[in-house]
C-alpha cells in the first residue's frame, strides 16, 4: 500500500492489519518518553487547505513521535492564495522530495489527483464530503477497544450524512467488517441511493438508536451553497439532538461517539458528551496511535 486515499478501496484484511499495528503504537503513547526513531530521516508534509485543529495536530503528533521531519503548510501563507494552481504547488513540493504528503482539501477527489502528480505517499486527511479514512480507522479502533469486535454491532450514524466524509468512510469500514449501520437524519441530509452502500435509512432518530451498540453523531454543517439542510439550529436540536431521552433507546452499555468539533446542544447534549458513555476524547487519543500505524505502514520505516 503506497497511499491511503479512502476506505472504499481497502479490504477487511488491510483494515484489520492497520488496527493491529496501531496497538503497539498506543503503547508508545503511554510511555514517559513518547518518541521512537522509526521514521527518522523521512519527511512528511502536512498540507491542510481547509481549517483543521484536531486532525492536523493529531498527524503532527504522530509524525513527531515517529521522529519524522514534519513540515506544515498554512494555506494563508501558501502560493495557493497567490494564484498558483494546486498541481503547480504539488509539483513544487514534489521537487523537494518529501516521503509523504498529508492532504486535507475541500474538494472531493483532490488527494486522488495529487496521487497521480506526485511520487510520494499521499494520505487523505479529508476530501470534500468524500472520505476521511484515518477518522474511520480511529473510530473502528475505538469501537474495537470498547466492544472487543467490529462485526455484528448495531451502529446508528446520525446527522448530515449527505455532506459528511466521516459518514462515508465509516459506512465503508463498518459494513466491510460486518456491522449493521443505520443512518438517520432529516431527508435533506440523506444522500440519494445511500442504501446501495449497505446501510438502512430512517428519518426517525429513535428508530436508528433503538438497541444500538454504537451511537455516532455527526457535526451539523454550516450553510452550503445549495442552501441550509434544516430550518434552524433550534428546530434541529428539538428533533435530532442526542440527549438522555434519545439515548435511552440504545443498549444500556451503548457507546457514544463524535468526530468533533461538536456543536454542544445542537447535535449532542452536554451531559451526553461529557457523560460516561461518551468516548469522544478516547477517539482523539486513539487517533494518534492509528495515524502512527498508517504512517509506519505506508512509509515502511524500519525499527532500527
Amino acid at each position, binding site marked *: 500500500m503506497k497511499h491511503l486515499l479512502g476506505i*472504499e478501496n481497502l479490504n477487511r484484511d488491510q483494515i484489520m492489519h492497520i488496527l493491529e499495528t496501531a496497538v503497539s503504537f498506543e503503547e508508545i503513547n503511554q510511555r514517559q518518553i513518547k518518541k521512537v526513531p522509526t521514521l527518522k530521516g523521512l519527511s512528511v508534509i502536512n498540507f491542510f487547505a481547509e481549517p483543521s485543529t484536531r486532525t492536523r495536530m493529531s498527524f503532527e503528533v504522530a509524525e513527531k513521535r515517529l521522529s519524522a521531519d514534519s513540515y506544515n503548510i498554512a494555506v494563508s501563507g501558501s502560493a495557493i492564495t497567490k494564484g498558483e*494552481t*494546486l*498541481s503547480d504547488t504539488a509539483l513544487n513540493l514534489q521537487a523537494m522530495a518529501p516521503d509523504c504528503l498529508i492532504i486535507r*482539501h*475541500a*474538494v*472531493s*477527489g*483532490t488527494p*486522488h*489527483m495529487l496521487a497521480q502528480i506526485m511520487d510520494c505517499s499521499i494520505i487523505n486527511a479529508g*476530501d*470534500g*464530503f*468524500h*472520505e476521511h479514512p484515518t477518522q474511520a480507522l480511529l473510530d473502528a479502533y475505538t469501537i474495537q477497544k470498547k466492544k472487543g469486535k467490529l462485526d455484528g454491532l448495531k451502529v446508528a450514524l446520525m446527522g448530515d450524512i*449527505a455532506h459528511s*466524509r466521516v459518514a*462515508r468512510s465509516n459506512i465503508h469500514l463498518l459494513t466491510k467488517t460486518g456491522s449493521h449501520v443505520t443512518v438517520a437524519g432529516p431527508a435533506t441530509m440523506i*444522500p*440519494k*441511493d*445511500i442504501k*446501495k*452502500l449497505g446501510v438502512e435509512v430512517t428519518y426517525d432518530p429513535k428508530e436508528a438508536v433503538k438497541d444500538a451498540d454504537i451511537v455516532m453523531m455527526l457535526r451539523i454543517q454550516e450553510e*452550503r*451553497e*445549495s442552501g441550509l439542510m434544516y430550518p434552524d439550529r433550534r428546530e434541529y436540536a428539538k428533533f435530532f439532538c442526542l440527549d438522555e431521552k434519545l439515548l435511552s433507546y440504545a443498549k444500556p452499555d451503548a457507546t457514544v461517539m463524535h468526530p468533533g468539533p461538536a456543536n454542544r446542544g445542537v447535535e449532542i447534549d452536554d451531559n451526553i458528551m461529557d457523560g460516561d458513555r461518551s468516548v469522544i476524547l478516547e477517539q482523539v487519543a486513539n487517533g494518534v496511535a492509528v495515524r502512527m500505524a498508517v504512517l509506519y505502514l505506508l512509509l515502511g520505516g524500519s525499527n532500527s
Partner: protein
Amino acid sequence: MKLLIKNGTIVNPKAGKGFIGSLLVENGKITKIAKGDLAADGAETVNAAGMIVTPGLIDLHVHFRDPGFEDKEDILTGLEAAAAGGFTAVCTMPNTSPACDNIGTIEYQTKKAAREGNGVRLYPIAAASKGLKGETMAPIGELKEGGAIAISDDGKPITDSSLLQRVMQYASSFGLMYVSHSEDTYLSKGGQMNESYFSTLYGMQGIPAVGEALSVARECLMAQYLGLPVHICHVSTKMAVDLIAYFKAQGVKVTAETAPHYLSLTDEAVGSYDTNTKVNPPLRSEEDRQALIAAVKSGIIDALATDHAPHHEREKNVEFNTAPSGMVGLETAVPLVYKLVHDKHITVERFVELFTAGYGIFGLEGGTLTEGGRADITIIDPEYQWTIDKNMFRSKARNTPFHGFHVKGAVFRTIAGGKTVYTRAY
C-alpha cells in the same frame, strides 16, 4: 476540378434507400449520382469501397471561443476539427467574449470563417439576451441581418419566464427560433455531477435530473402557448425525453438534440475524478443513457450535436470543483455514435438523419445529395478500428474523456463545397 467518388454505399435517406454507386463533383456541385460506375474522365478518383457516402454532416451545437478565448479554440482550428470529424457545417454558440450579441461580433465570426476558413460553413447562433445575462433582449433583428440562424443563451437558461416569452415572440417576427439550454440553476447550484448513487459514493454535490426536466417542461409549455417552435439542447435525462415525447404528441413544434457523450458514458465515469468527465448537463445514469438511445432511435430526439466545448489543459488540470464544464466532441462524434449502428440500435440511415437533421431544424441548405446541389459530402469507413488519441486532434483543445478509447468507424474524407477539407491518413 473534378472529383469522382466510386464504389461507396451512398446513404442519402432523403432520396430513399442506399445503393452502391458513384458520385461526380464538379465546380463545387454534385453533377451526377449514379448506381454502379461512372467514367473518371480525368477526375480525381476516390475509391470508397466498403465505405458509406453521406451528405455532409452538420453539428448544430459547438463552442469556438472566438473572439475572446482563443487559447481554447479559434474559428479556424474549430473548423479544422469539424472537418476532421466529418462535419461540413457547424452552428456556433454565442458565449464568446464579447458575447455574440452585437453586429460587430457576428460579422467578425462569419467573415473570418468565410475568408480564412477551410470551407466548412459556420452558422452563428446569436445571443438571446444582452451579454447573455438573461435580463434584456439582444438586438435580435440586427443579429439576423448579420447571419444569425437562431438565438440562444446557451450555457445558461433564461430564468425570467417573462423574458423567455418576449424573446421567443420577438425572435419569431424575424423567423428565428429560440434554442434552449434547459437547466434549473437553483437545483444545479454547486453541483459537480449527476445526483445519483455515484454522487453519494464519490462525495460530490449532485445535479438532479428533475432540474433539466423542469426547464424542458417550461420551454415546451411556452412553445405550446405561443404556437412557436423551440429547440432543446443537449438532452441528458429520461425525464426530459419523456416530456419531449409528450409535447411532440400534443403537436408542439419541439425539436431536440443529444450529444455523443450522453450515449457513451454514465455518471460512474466521474469516479476517476478526471475533470474531463465534468460537463453540463452532467453525465447521467445508465437508465438515462438507455432512454436516450431509445429516443434517438424512435425520433423523439431529432439530432446529434457534440456541444464541442474546448478548454485549455491548464484550466482542466485543477481540483474538480474548480474545473470548467465541457468536453471537445467534434473529432470523436462519428465513431462514438456509429457504435449504435454496430450494436444494431439504429440503422445507418438513422445515423445519417441524426447528423443531418440540423439543416432542417434551422432551415439551412444541405442534408441531402442531389444533382446540381452543393457538394458537401462525408465519407465514413464504418469498419476501421482505431484508438482515440487526443494529441492527434485538429482542435486546439485536448479535453476529452475518450482518450485511449478503442473505436470502430472513422471519417475517411470530408468534402465541403466540392473541396476536400479532410482526408484520413491510414
